[in-house]
């Protein structure tokens, strides 16, 4: 896995705004990508996934975009709610081994 610093990027938004969280991965052989949400004191919770043969996938209020050319993932959250406040991690999978990217702290203000 990558070595990341102790200071996670932060994103602060107002309730109802759309949020975009970005992530870079390094393994060009990875074929499956996942976004996780982690709340304080809990394990990561699956949000949405995408396979490498796709460039966009939509879920309920969330959309993941994959750009394999530049090895970049983004997570879009529509109409962000206070309950969305958490740390968000992207992960890429290679034969089931997940490599997590640097997390982003999302804070949603009412």
């Amino acid at each position, binding site marked *: 896995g990558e070595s990341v*610093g102790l200071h996670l990027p932060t994103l602060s938004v107002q309730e109802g705004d759309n949020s975009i969280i970005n992530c870079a991965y390094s393994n060009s052989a990875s074929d*499956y990508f996942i976004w996780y949400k982690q709340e304080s004191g809990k394990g990561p919770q699956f949000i949405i996934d995408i396979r490498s043969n796709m460039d966009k996938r939509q879920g309920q209020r969330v959309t993941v975009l994959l750009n394999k050319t530049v090895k970049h993932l983004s997570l879009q959250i529509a109409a962000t709610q206070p309950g969305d406040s958490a740390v968000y991690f992207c992960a890429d999978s290679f034969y089931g081994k997940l490599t997590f990217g*640097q997390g982003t702290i999302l804070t949603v203000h009412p």
Partner: protein
Amino acid sequence: DAGVTQSPTHLIKTRGQHVTLRCSPISGHKSVSWYQQVLGQGPQFIFQYYEKEERGRGNFPDRFSARQFPNYSSELNVNALLLGDSALYLCASSHTSGSYNEQFFGPGTRLTVL
């Protein structure tokens, strides 16, 4: 249905000691993976087991070992604990090994080494 369970929830050890962490996967899941999450960082892969066999190992020293039992539960063992082993240890289960398998995480075991 119960999710992934881990025990204990918290543990305090001193340097040089040994620790065993336990994980029970979701019913029907045959693969278990272990991750270490140091404060302020993303989880780092330690091991993956499938059908009681090691299927992958991350960049961790030999002090770290694991095994999977016939009921698919798993143990992570860490010998000769160092201060730097203080972390949240996460277990994740999935139906099989391989890429296209959603991994479900447990709540973790918080290990503090003094």
